[in-house]
């Protein structure tokens, strides 16, 4: 592993940050052009964002959807892991099928049952899309060891519920926390399928960003990007705290 290779590696990883850093930079632009500020920096666009009910409502919805779908997703994946050891291949398709096709097909499907455009439908779809990741996280974390620990607990007199609460959950705890964070971030930022599912009354933050990027964009999009990144970082920090608390 030569030094050149190493330098190159770090370079590529840092390069991935460039677009995000660009967005942060532009968000402080003092005027309406999307040029990054050099001389004059301003918080004007942050104030505009906070005053704009379209944006703030969308951000609020993103928060609700992210929190609820991560809870639901992790809960369902946990049940699946615990009850069916032989592997649940059926949980994997939502991750590999093209989101465009999923979104496009869900439109008429949801219309048919009269649920199209509701925030609830967004939560349900996000939950479904997050199941493969949560499930894989649990599977790779648990492995054979958990099965043996559960057997040991049963031999010591614990019934199925006691095994779940006293052994399975504590052992899976790091994976559960990681899954919650992952699903939160993925759900908050989910745009590809969500654009097909929402109307102006149910749009989430990425959907508003989308329409702005398609039309004429202002630094508000950059602000939205910063808000999204911050939400993600806060989620990571909260979970990291919970992780350390009784690690």
């Amino acid at each position: 592993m030569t030094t050149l290779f190493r330098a190159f590696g770090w370079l590529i990883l840092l390069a991935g940050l460039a677009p995000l850093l660009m967005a942060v930079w532009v968000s402080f632009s003092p005027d309406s052009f999307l040029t990054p500020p050099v001389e004059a920096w301003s918080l004007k666009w942050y104030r505009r964002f906070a005053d704009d009910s379209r944006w703030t409502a969308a951000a609020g919805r993103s928060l609700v959807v992210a929190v609820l779908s991560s809870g639901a997703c992790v809960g369902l994946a946990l049940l699946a892991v615990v009850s069916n050891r032989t592997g649940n291949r059926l949980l994997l398709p939502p991750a590999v099928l093209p989101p465009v096709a999923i979104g496009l097909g869900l439109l008429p499907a949801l219309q048919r049952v009269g649920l199209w455009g509701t925030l609830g439908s967004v939560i349900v779809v996000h939950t479904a899309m997050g199941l493969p990741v949560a499930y894989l996280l649990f599977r790779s974390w648990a492995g054979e060891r958990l099965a043996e620990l559960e057997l040991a607990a049963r031999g010591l007199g614990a019934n199925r519920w006691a095994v779940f609460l006293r052994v399975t959950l504590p052992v899976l705890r790091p994976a559960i926390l990681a899954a919650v964070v992952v699903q939160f971030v993925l759900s908050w930022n989910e745009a590809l399928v969500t654009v097909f599912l929402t109307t102006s009354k149910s749009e989430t933050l990425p959907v508003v960003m989308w329409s702005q990027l398609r039309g004429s964009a202002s630094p508000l999009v950059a602000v939205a990007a910063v808000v999204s990144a911050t939400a993600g970082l806060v989620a990571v920090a909260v979970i990291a705290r919970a992780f350390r608390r009784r690690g």
Partner: protein
Amino acid sequence: MPSTGTPSPTAGTALSSAVELSAVSFGYGPTPVLRAVSVAVPAGAFVTLLGPSGCGKTTLLKVLAGYISPNSGTIRLHGQDVTATPPERRDVGFVFQNYALFPHLTARGNVAFPLEIRGISKQETRARVEAMLDRVRLSPAEWDRHPRELSGGQQQRVALARALVFDPAVLLLDEPLANLDRSLREQLRDELRRVQRETGTTTVLVTHDQDEAFAVSDYLGVMHAGRVEQFGPPREIYERPVSETVARALGIANLLPGEVVGRRLGTTVMIRPEKFHPGGSLAGRITAVRFHGADVLADVVGENFNLTWRTRTAPLPAVGEIVSLGVDPADVWELPDS
């Protein structure tokens, strides 16, 4: 209940049996793993099931514990039929080969687990946990550590304590010493026996290590291909095995054609290597000598036999030497059905 010594050798009397397996069979589809196994273990005894990997001994243990349901046969614990009882209600303590200690609990927490499940008060739990950790000689400094901070030997002690703290009727151990190095193994083996004597718990241990089997057991069950070939006190099985398989399972067997020592044609005899002495009619050349510390093993090749001789008296054998070995007729065991 504490025992006052080794139990009676009538290991088969249903009345005194703490553990009784009757015609237990188990297989995966067409592959049989256990073939109509019947064993009776007296109360308070320490029994070892010895056999190579794949002979079904771990499966038998799991059937006893309730983790595996047999295809046929019954299991009785202290007279009660528990064949259909799930593991959590069977009152059996099980020590896994990898210990299966809960990583998120301390040593104390692990040992307290079965008591907490049974709803025992915090004070009583604490007292019993500490008494048991004391009994397995885990130093108090380690009691509040997590398993990953403990050595292999310490983990084993915790696993043992956890399995015994709730006074089970039977203690089952699945190759508990397999993951430890030699000196530790011997030390823990003796500890295991001591604890077992102190608590008087009927114990079944499974191993492939014959030294282990000899050192601690009141009774030995030699298993092969899903059957218990012989069951009895270790000395008896060592000196009077019922088959070649059992003979070989317990050490160097020296299976010779009967005529070599003056028996009928067609019989096979077994002479343990330490039974030979110089000065006899079995003449052969020493082809190899292996030093084993306390004694020496010499391969002797004769006209119509090969054998291995174990000796520790001077003069020690040397490669190339011609020796004539003799053996006391009482030490020549004729294998049945040979």
